[in-house]
């Protein structure tokens, strides 16, 4: 009996405490909102947003609803995160491998790269790129083309946009190619298990993914045109580029800072993963007659990836959360648009901050769940 009380009492007290805290806050919130004449509710989401965004992926203007503004802003956040993840992975893998190089210079340069970018606060790095480095770029009229067709100016990076005709034919060809590749991989694995023969899967896949879309150009009537950015004079001294796609400096600064900062952490994950494989694995693989390439592909990488992927995903998650720093340089991401402008206009502090936090929380939890599933799947199954 005594034991039961010992188990139940603390739990009861904790629950009561939590209920008390929540209740206290709710009552206060109600009183405060009554006093200020605000009511709780999500009806505002369908109202007209009536503010503009500098940079959007989907069509948006001031007449659209707050809900649509939320979707567009969320897409902007995801765009930054996506670009950041791609660049930080490329950089991180290169730096991580370089840290294990036998070359004294390369090893140390990589180590100093990591020490340098890891120990400066991300916000300062973003500010540095946005307010200092990118402000030193030329005005549109003085810009020299990069690679002939793109222009890096103080107002952003201008690249040609693609104009497709019959895009859906091209896309279906691409999807067909991918599906075919998946089937071929499955078939190749079966062949290998049954007969021990290895099909040149890589070359077949490369051929498929180039030839099928190419056919769509030749037969399917798909055409691709480029719209080049062209310099246009607005007034005596004011020039802008028209046409093409303009990547605003906010986006460039954010992606640069996020990928440089996160790449240091990814590099450390990669290094730890490769170092975590014992030398015996390599020697054993060599002694059964595998070539160096096969050792890397079939023995080292599968094991190293098992160590590398979980902490790296964590870093991707951090990058996504850090992308909210966009608000500090006025890139229209979720926090700036929703928790900034929309909150200011509607005054619905609780709902809007709640939605914003919940969005990030669900992204985090979704990725965490995916990670757990992946970890379970690749776990070494000991007999």
């Amino acid at each position, binding site marked *: 009996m005594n034991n039961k009380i010992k188990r139940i009492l603390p739990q009861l007290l904790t629950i009561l405490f939590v209920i008390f805290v929540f209740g206290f806050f709710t009552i206060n919130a109600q009183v405060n909102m009554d006093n200020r004449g605000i009511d709780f509710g999500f009806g505002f989401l369908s109202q007209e947003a009536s503010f503009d965004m500098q940079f959007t992926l989907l069509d948006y203007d001031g007449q659209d609803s707050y809900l649509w503004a939320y979707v567009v802003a969320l897409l902007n956040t995801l765009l930054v995160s996506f670009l950041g993840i791609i660049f930080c992975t490329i950089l991180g893998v290169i730096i991580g491998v370089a840290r294990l190089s036998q070359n004294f210079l*390369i090893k140390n340069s990589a180590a100093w790269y990591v020490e340098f970018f890891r*120990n400066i*606060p991300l916000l300062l790095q973003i500010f540095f790129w946005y307010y*200092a480095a990118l402000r030193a770029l030329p005005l549109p009229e003085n810009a020299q083309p990069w690679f002939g067709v793109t222009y890096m100016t103080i107002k952003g990076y201008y690249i040609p946009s693609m104009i497709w005709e019959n895009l859906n034919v091209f896309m279906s060809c691409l999807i067909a190619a991918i599906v075919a590749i998946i089937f071929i991989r499955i078939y190749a694995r079966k062949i290998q298990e049954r007969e021990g023969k290895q099909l040149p899967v890589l070359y077949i896949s490369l051929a498929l993914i180039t030839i099928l879309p190419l056919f769509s150009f030749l037969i399917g009537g798909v055409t691709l045109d480029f719209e080049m950015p062209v310099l246009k004079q607005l007034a005596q001294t004011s020039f802008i580029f028209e046409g093409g796609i303009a990547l605003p400096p906010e986006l460039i600064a954010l992606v640069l800072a996020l990928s440089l900062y996160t790449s240091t952490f990814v590099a450390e994950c990669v290094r730890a993963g490769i170092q975590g494989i014992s030398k015996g694995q390599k020697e054993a693989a060599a002694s059964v007659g595998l070539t160096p390439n096969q050792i890397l592909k079939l023995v080292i990488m599968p094991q190293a990836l098992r160590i590398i992927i979980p902490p790296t995903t964590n870093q991707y998650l951090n990058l996504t959360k850090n992308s909210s*720093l966009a608000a500090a340089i006025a890139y229209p991401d979720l926090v700036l648009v929703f928790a900034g402008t929309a909150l200011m206009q509607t005054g619905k502090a609780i709902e809007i901050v709640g939605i914003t*936090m919940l969005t990030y929380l669900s992204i985090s939890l979704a990725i965490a769940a995916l990670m757990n599933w992946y970890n379970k799947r690749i776990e070494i199954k000991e007999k």
Partner: protein
Amino acid sequence: MNLSLNRIKSQNQMTNIYIGSALLILSILDVFLNSFFRINISGSLPGNLSIFFPLILGFLGLSYLRTEYSGYKFLDSLNKNINTTNFNAFLTLFITFAILKAFPPALSWMVLDANISGDTKEACTGTGACWTYIKVWFKRFMYGMYPNELHWRINSAFLLVIGLGFVGYFFKENLKKYLALYYVVIYPIIAFLIIYYLISGGAFGLVWVETGAWGGLSLTFIVSFFCLIFCFPLGMILALGRRSNLPAIRYISVGYIEFWRGVPLITVLFMSSVMFPMFLPQDFFMDKLVRVIIAITLFEAAYCAEVIRGGLQALPRGQYDAAKSLGMGYWKMHIFVILPQALKLVIPGIANTFLALVKDTPLIFVVGLAEIAGMLALAKTNPKWLGFAMEGYIFAAIIFWIICYAMSKYSYNLEEKYKTER
């Protein structure tokens, strides 16, 4: 590639070494003269060849130099370290030339063409950096809008707090058992009182300085220090809660930790500035700085809890069993047996959390507190000092880099130390 390059080598090793070093020295000399004295000895070559000329020359030189064993110590270590394969040699040259190319402009901007004399913008006449700007604004970057004649209060408060932190080293043997008590309970309280009364004043004849005037780097330290000492006990409770075998407590702890770890700090700060006032009773005023510190503490406690949980999990089961077999209850077991050992294990992890915290504090700029990033933004838009964003951010970056690098090295050393002790 390797084969064809080997074929052009002479059979005589000495000839190879002479040709190789001559080519290598020539290529480095070319880049060196080019970047330091703007003399381009390969300028007469057509088009892009003059850019790649040193690279090709050095590459050939290194491939001539590459031998199994030459007998010269320097050459052998060179071959072993930076010249093992063609690819390696190429990377070596690339990095060396990049450093040689980047060094002179950086040096002349930061030192040779820079200005530091004078008190106004007009004193900056050189083409390089204007350190006068930093010199004039230095006090603002360090202390924010805190009155100039009262800066000694911030300095002495920090010195006192740091000094008290070292008191633990001088504890006598018979007092050692109170060490944990001192650091977890007494020290935070004393430190809080010192910082509160010395910096904000209002008592003991000190002039009251409102928190709106606090700022600069000192605010970074105040915020991160308070958040650390407050989040530590909270994190400890949460870590114990997460490992508890009472389901309600465990789920509440897990929910708390996962919630705060899933949201970005910036939304937490927004919450503190717009949502907190709604949740507090009417007419109850809470200073913005206090709200921010509470928000960061709640946020950081979740991370702290995960670090401490790692320490708790690392302890062998035998410790729990032994404590229980002596008839200790839950609290007795944790306070006297488990936590002292676990906390010692997590010191490096806590140091890392603190490092992350210091790197995160510039964010409070977003809710309008004039921390160093905020002061930079203020200085940047001052009409008398327009156009020095670069200097400001480089200065702040250097300061933060030194602090964070020192801390990361310290936590790494701690890690090494405790690794060997176990």
